[in-house]
């Protein structure tokens, strides 16, 4: 096995290439998922962390986890900057995943505003990791503006459809000298593996884990798939699958006569 294969982002070294999104599964599962997934960096929505009262996700993050707060809820670069500052105030560090969305249906990121936010946040000393629509030119602009990594979507967030944008992500992997992390759309370990085989530096997953039958065990499956894909990339190429799940006990048993 290759001796040193650290992933370096913004001067920080990581051994794990599994980035976990949080917020779609119960807080008390967070620790178990992180441990089973060997996760070293996990996102959190500032809009959730900001909620005092009922369960603060920060309390459920194990020691040693690097937080990647995101700006979800922002519709413009200015709003993203304000949320990033709030994250810093909350003690979440300097990493910031920029997420700027003006589309409530598909939740697609706005590349133009994201480019602007990368520059503004870089100037304020953040380590910007932009979530983006895989567009090579936009990725170049983000890199020029000070991005520490590029995070293109594989397919619409939460869709579990896998890497529908593979050809465009491949261009970014080939042309940009920054870690490329596939964020959104990865639904299965096999797809995570595919991303890694393509040469992506890491994979972000949340819904895929949260909607699994056994959440903790699926986290482990992702870890293994990501490691396998990385190993395949460093050696040579690989391949994919497809399918669908069904429910078990009756969901409508609670209905009354009235």
């Amino acid at each position: 096995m290759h001796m040193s294969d650290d992933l370096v982002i913004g001067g920080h070294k990581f051994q794990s290439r599994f980035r976990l999104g949080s917020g779609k599964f119960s807080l008390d599962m967070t620790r178990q998922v992180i441990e089973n997934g060997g996760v070293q960096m996990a996102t959190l929505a500032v809009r959730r962390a900001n909620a005092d009262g009922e369960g603060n996700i920060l309390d459920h993050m194990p020691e040693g986890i690097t937080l990647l707060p995101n700006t979800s809820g922002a519709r413009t670069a200015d709003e993203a900057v304000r949320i990033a500052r709030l994250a810093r105030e909350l003690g979440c560090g300097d990493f910031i995943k920029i997420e700027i969305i003006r589309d409530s249906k598909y939740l697609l990121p706005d590349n133009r505003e994201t480019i602007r936010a990368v520059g503004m946040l870089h100037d304020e000393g953040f380590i910007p990791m932009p979530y983006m629509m895989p567009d090579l030119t936009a990725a170049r602009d983000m890199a020029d503006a000070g991005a520490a990594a590029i995070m293109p979507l594989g397919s619409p967030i939460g869709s579990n459809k896998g890497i529908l944008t593979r050809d465009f992500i491949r261009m970014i992997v080939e042309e940009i000298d920054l870690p490329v992390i596939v964020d959104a759309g990865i639904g299965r370990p096999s797809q995570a593996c595919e991303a890694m085989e393509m040469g992506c530096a890491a994979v972000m997953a949340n819904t895929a884990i949260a909607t699994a039958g056994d959440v903790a065990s699926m986290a482990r499956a992702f870890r293994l798939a990501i490691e396998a894909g990385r190993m395949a990339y460093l050696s040579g190429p690989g391949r994919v699958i497809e399918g669908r799940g069904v429910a078990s006990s009756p969901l409508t048993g609670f209905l009354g006569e009235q």
Partner: protein
Amino acid sequence: MVRRWTDAEDYHEGMESIDSDVMDRVLAATREYEPDSYTETDVRRAMSGPVGPEGFGALLSPAAKPMMEEIATLAREETRKHFGNAVTLFTPIYASNQCENRCIYCGFNCDNKINRATLSPEDVRREMDSIASMGLRDILILTGESREHSDIPYIGDCVEAASERFTAVGIEVYPMNTDEYRYLQSKGADYVTVFQETYDPERYAELHPGGPKRIFSYRFDAQERALRGGMRGVAFGALLGLGDFRRDAFACGMHAHLIQRRYPHAEVSFSLPRLRPFINGRVEPESVSESDLLQVSMAYRLFMPFASQTISTRERAGFRDGIVNISATRISASVSVGVGEHSGTGHGDGQFEISDPRSVDEIVGSLRRNGLQPVMADYVRP
């Protein structure tokens, strides 16, 4: 200027008329919608692919009834994809029950002899402090529809007080003009809820014999004006049981659908109110069963999977627990529909009777037992 379906009634002075074809398109599509024309094959087709207006109609039809369990599986899957296992808690605050309308199905009807009250600014704050102390971060401000007793500055003051105490502030008050929505947004309001009640203009006219609410189209355009005024999100609802519930739900879904297409940044959501027989003896509700209500919710989910759905305290605890496991994503907790009931300062009667009086802690416990994640706020005001 008078906008269509208001032939019988002119716009009142000051009511803004906007340039939009959404209402005409919704009413035209609804006129063509025949719930009984669908077959099992149509429903299967809707279940297998992306759901457009045609598939939405099929899912709302009687033909879908035998497939409720299968549809529930699909609906739950869509809900999980978009919301994970998170369910947002909120509570309404009734600031006033003064009303100028004569909706014949409503407890606030101005002809009803009930105890009327409007909270003073101090009482509003006391009431909100009491609600905030329960751990809630998402509040919905409600008033009856009276520009006299709860004018825009009054609502603005309520919104301001709420935005100091809560993360997300919604308003469910009378429809207003764009500049008034803009003013309330500047005070801290994020979301606007307006129920059209029924989308059948003739039935609407029968049910609303007097008051500004009689103007069907002014109410219909409220969400558009709210979005033009800068609101972040808008909620839609038909009070199922006032008319043919399938047609009303179809129209309500189409309304939300067309608004979302025109204002893609808007956060669109649905409310799921059902007219209950005991509210008022003057309306014979069309029968809408729990199964019917669930069917509507699931059709909304598959048609607009990204839209949140709120389930009312008009429904019993067991039903609410069941539906948040399938398609609803917002649930009210510790609800008092009387004016000033949280802090004991007020004495205004409620609009309807609630069927799920559970406290925040009880709702939280119940969600957790069902493997769901109670969320107090899913929003940061940028």
